[in-house]
């Protein structure tokens, strides 16, 4: 593993950190998350216009800066630190990744709209009972989709959705671009535990043009799996930011909180707990960087590195978040500090893109043995 940030990457990270420190203060964020629409579309445009953020990881022919996994990692970590709810992950990592690998002018055009901030594209791949039961049928004018999708995060904010379905007569997975306003598409939106918005989708006689299909019918399973690994690596990077904040807040709290005539930071048990949190974050960081660097390798290498990162990060999230609450004592249980929101995001990340069991199982299946 050889890894140094180049100048542009350092600049991207520093600019973003500075921007968020000024423009994304926690109290303002809390109000926005509680209200409607639950995010800041104007800020999204500033991400595109002022920071060039939305195209940071996109190919140059789509108006992006030609970056990739490392740029995604930097953005996600910064977003984690500031607990940004705007859908960079869903739109610029997941959907954009799928579009960038899909042939055709329509995909490239949509990608360009993502980079400039005028399209919010969000994938909807999971279903209430697992697998892909959503059916796509050829019609004279294109396609008709019928089925349901569950917990499509950021879907309420989307201009387009990328929906997985099974095309009549094929066995593999297919992906379709669906405009948000399409007839026959209904969204049931709701807040999630970590203050985001998600929706369950119902497609009933949803009519699409022929160009809505991405790539070849039935041939998108590998694309979907790559997308999920990229998503997992991205939330791992986000978790690094979330955990850094949880750790820093806790460190500050124990240095300030006095009991028994001294700062509780002086108690050895509390010191060791903070160190144990730090250790887990360090391991999580090493595994996450490696996973990001492995996204362009073979599917097997990618999967092993991502599963290792996701498990290492998930366990770190659990330990760090729970101990951050514990060391804050009663205050940690209240909804009055940023802590609570970071805690919830950390626990959500634990489960997103496959929980510990899922990735342990996948890893055991692939049976790599450390060299």
């Amino acid at each position, binding site marked *: 593993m050889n890894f140094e940030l180049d100048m542009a990457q350092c600049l991207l990270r520093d600019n973003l950190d500075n921007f968020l420190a000024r423009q994304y203060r926690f109290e303002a964020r809390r109000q926005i998350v509680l209200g409607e629409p639950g995010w800041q579309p104007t800020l999204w445009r500033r991400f595109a216009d002022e920071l060039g953020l939305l195209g940071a990881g996109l190919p140059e022919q789509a108006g992006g800066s030609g970056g990739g996994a490392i740029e995604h990692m930097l953005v996600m970590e910064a977003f984690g630190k500031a607990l940004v709810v705007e859908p960079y992950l869903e739109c610029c990592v997941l959907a954009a990744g799928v579009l960038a690998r899909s042939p055709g002018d329509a995909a490239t055009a949509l990608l360009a709209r993502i980079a400039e901030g005028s399209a919010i594209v969000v994938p909807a791949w*999971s279903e*209430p009972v697992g697998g892909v039961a959503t059916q796509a049928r050829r019609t004279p004018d294109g396609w008709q989709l019928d089925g349901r999708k*569950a*917990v499509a995060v950021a879907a309420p904010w989307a201009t387009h959705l990328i929906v997985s379905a099974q095309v009549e007569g094929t066995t593999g997975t297919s992906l379709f671009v669906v405009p948000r306003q399409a007839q026959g598409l209904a969204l*049931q939106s*709701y*807040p*999630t*535990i970590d*203050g985001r918005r*998600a929706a*369950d989708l119902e497609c009933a006689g949803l009519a699409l043009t022929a160009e809505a299909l991405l790539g070849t019918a039935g041939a998108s399973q590998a694309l979907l799996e790559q997308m999920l690994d990229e998503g997992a690596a991205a939330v791992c990077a986000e978790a690094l930011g979330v955990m850094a904040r949880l750790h820093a807040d806790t460190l500050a709290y124990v240095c300030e909180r*006095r*009991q*028994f*005539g*001294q700062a509780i930071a002086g*108690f050895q*048990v*509390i010191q060791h707990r903070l160190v144990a949190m730090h250790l887990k974050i360090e391991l999580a960081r090493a595994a996450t960087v490696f996973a990001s660097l492995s996204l362009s390798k073979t599917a097997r290498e990618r999967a092993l590195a991502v599963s290792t990162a996701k498990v290492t990060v998930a366990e770190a999230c659990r330990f760090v978040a*729970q101990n951050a*609450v*514990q060391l804050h*004592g*009663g205050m*940690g*249980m*209240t*909804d*009055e500090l940023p802590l*609570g929101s970071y*805690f*919830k995001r950390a626990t*959500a990340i634990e*489960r997103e893109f496959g*929980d510990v*069991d899922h990735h*342990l199982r996948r890893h055991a299946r692939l049976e790599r043995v450390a060299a």
Partner: protein
Amino acid sequence: MSDEVFTRDLCSWLDANLPASLCTAMPEDEIPWGGSRGRFPNPDTRRWMDAMAARGWTAPTWPRMYGGGGLDATRAAILQQELRRRGARPALFSFGLWMLGPVLLEYGSEAQKQRFLPPIVRGEARWCQGYSEPDAGSDLASLRTKAVDAGDHWRVDGRKIWTSYADEADWIFCLVRTDTGRKHGGISFLLIDMKSPGISTRPIRLISGSSPFCETFFDDVAVPKEHLVGPLNGGWEIARKLLQYERQNVAAAGFGGELKRIEARARQLFGIDAQGRIADAALRERIAHADMYEYATRLTMQRAQREVDAGQASSASSVVKYAAAHANQQHYELMIETLGYEGLGWQGAPYETESLEQTRKWLRSKGNSIEGGTSEINLNVIARRVLGLPGGA
């Protein structure tokens, strides 16, 4: 009257007075907290409380002169047993009953007992507890809410936190500072009417949503002199007794016991194998593991109880709070795991009400190792009192 006769009479009384609707599981909103603002969505709840209180059986072992049942240990046990056999809900939930009552019986003046105990037995007065302060949590004795001698009354100023149900209570029992020169030796135990001018409360929102906890503010509150319990500056001894009591209480309350539900969900989410077991072997074994831990904890509780009942000092009882918190947290971790997508919801459709409730209980369980003495403080206490290790913090 022999115990047999007592039992026979009890049974026929129960047949006549225990409403069938109260021999079912108790939903949260039907908990019989009593008090002047008591709510009884099911009128049977009220009837049952009043009937039990009339016999003094809401406080079976308290003396009859204070409204109690005056039962000896044997008969109290018979009463318990018959109630349990019928699956009867408790007639009254009350901090007055569980915490203040025993303190008044031991430390209260005759006048205090006569005035305060009967309304507790009857569920007329609801009490809350004013102990912790923002800067006095684990180090409770550093509390600063002060009661100043103003001649014919005390003048109380300060702020209490984690006062459960303060916004519903009629009275509060409080630790207050009456001497700023000494730490533990400057604390007194005071009873304060929540209707007194100058008292206000603010509910505390938790990461799990709304909660019964409040902050309670005292701004120049006048309290009659005779509401001091025990000697002036003698409050710490009372507090310690009460805290011990609270620890046991917290440990026993809301502890596990829903593994059946977890198993059912796991079957639903992961399917079953050829032998009808949860298909996911690792999860199945984790559930078995949690079950074993809960069971061992429960057995330790029973052992502690037996030793306490036999008048012995129990080293097991100090274990219980810690182990119960751990068991409960582990329990809800399993629960949330079996919820899958359902565990990501926060409110509203399409999530099932039960899933949302479980998710919030899971978040709430993070407090188990904090409330009633953090696990860290609890371990300090065990190190000193049970293992005899030298004191540090």
